[in-house]
Every structure is written in C-alpha cells, then in structure tokens.
C-alpha cells in the first residue's frame, strides 16, 4: 500500500509494480485507475486518510488474495488532487485472468465501502465534505 501527497504518478507506479512481478509467472495483471472528473464546479478533490485502520483493511485483502493465488496493490492520495489527475489506483496480479477480474471488482467495491478515507470537494478554495457520496462503514451506528 502506498500513500502520496497530491496526485498519483500512475505510469511510474503501474510500471514499477509490473517490473516487480515480471518474473513471478502471473498470467494476468489488471490495473484500475480512478481519475477525478471536472463536475459541479470543483477544482479538485481532497482526502483525509486514517492510515492505521486502512493498513489493517488492506492487510486483510492481501491475505484474501493470497488464498486465491493472487496479489493486490493500491496507491492513494492524501490532500488536494486536481481534476483530470488520479487519486486512487489499484491492481491485481493472478495466475489466470478470471480470478484477477473478479478480485479487482470485489477489492474496489469493498474499498469504496470500508476504507477509512474521507473525501471533500474543493470549490473556490474551500473544502466541503462530500457527505452525499459517502457511505457508513460496516458496523456503523454502534454508538447511536
């Protein structure tokens, strides 16, 4: 898991991940790139991350992937990320493509639902919590 301040250098990261596994005999490498769209007058999105819980979440996925003979990778931005650049990328390596295709979907869906990351719209230099697009994590409401 890799965290960066600002936009991700997607080509460098994907290229490096590919090089690292070049002799691991994986038949499939499926990358996912999340790019920030220009909409609703935003100039950027901004992110807060709670790294200790994110690391625990990610480590569980590393184990789940391992049980299926696969590897999961991810990188995410902290702070402001301008439109038309990337704040989140992930990838799966596996011996066969079917496992990788299925795993990238499950991994990204669970990431959206349970990774402890908070998103803000940046409008006229102000950070506004993206409440409407946010999802309560699993187990939410325990103290309510």
């Amino acid at each position, binding site marked *: 898991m890799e965290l960066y301040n600002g936009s991700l250098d997607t080509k460098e990261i994907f290229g490096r991940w590919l090089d690292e596994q070049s002799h691991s005999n994986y038949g499939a490498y499926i990358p996912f790139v*999340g790019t920030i769209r220009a909409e609703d007058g935003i100039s950027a999105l901004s*992110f*807060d991350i*709670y790294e*200790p*819980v994110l690391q*625990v979440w990610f480590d569980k996925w590393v184990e789940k992937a391992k049980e299926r003979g696969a590897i999961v990778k991810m990188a*995410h931005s902290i702070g402001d990320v301008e439109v038309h650049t990337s*704040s*989140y990328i992930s990838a799966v390596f596996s011996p066969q493509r079917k496992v990788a295709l299925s795993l990238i979907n499950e991994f*990204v869906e669970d*990431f*959206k*639902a*349970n*990774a*402890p*990351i*908070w*998103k*803000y719209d940046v409008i006229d230099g102000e950070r506004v*919590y*993206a*409440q409407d*697009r*946010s*999802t*309560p*994590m*699993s*187990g*939410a*409401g*325990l*103290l*309510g």
Partner: protein
Amino acid sequence: MVKVEFLGPMGIEPIEIEVSNLKELSKILKENRDISSWLDKSAVAINDVMVNNLDTTLNSGDRVSILPPVCGG
C-alpha cells in the same frame, strides 16, 4: 482514562473520559449535540481495531476512534 478521537470531517478535538465500556461511552457522547448527530452513521475502532459489540470493555489508556461515512477513490 480513555481517549476518544473524531476522524475526518467531524472537526471535533479529541477528548479524554472515564468510562468502562462502549455502552457508557455512547451515553456520554449522545449528550453532546455536535457529536450525537454523527453517531448513528459512524463506525468505531478501539486501538485501531474495528468493533461491533456495545458490551466491549474499555481500559485506561485505550484509544477509541469514531469513523464517519467514507468515500475513498
């Protein structure tokens, strides 16, 4: 003392309180108007491990994190 921290957009400073389980903590936090509106949609971690049981015991030195709705990516 148990330290309680409010993550992400909550914008509330951490507090330290004397409680022995999550049920007691819930009761106290519900009395604070700035905090109570977040509780029904927030998840809870103790010492960075997510928890699901209101009877979970709290010991002095424990750190409780309140995690509001998320949106990564």
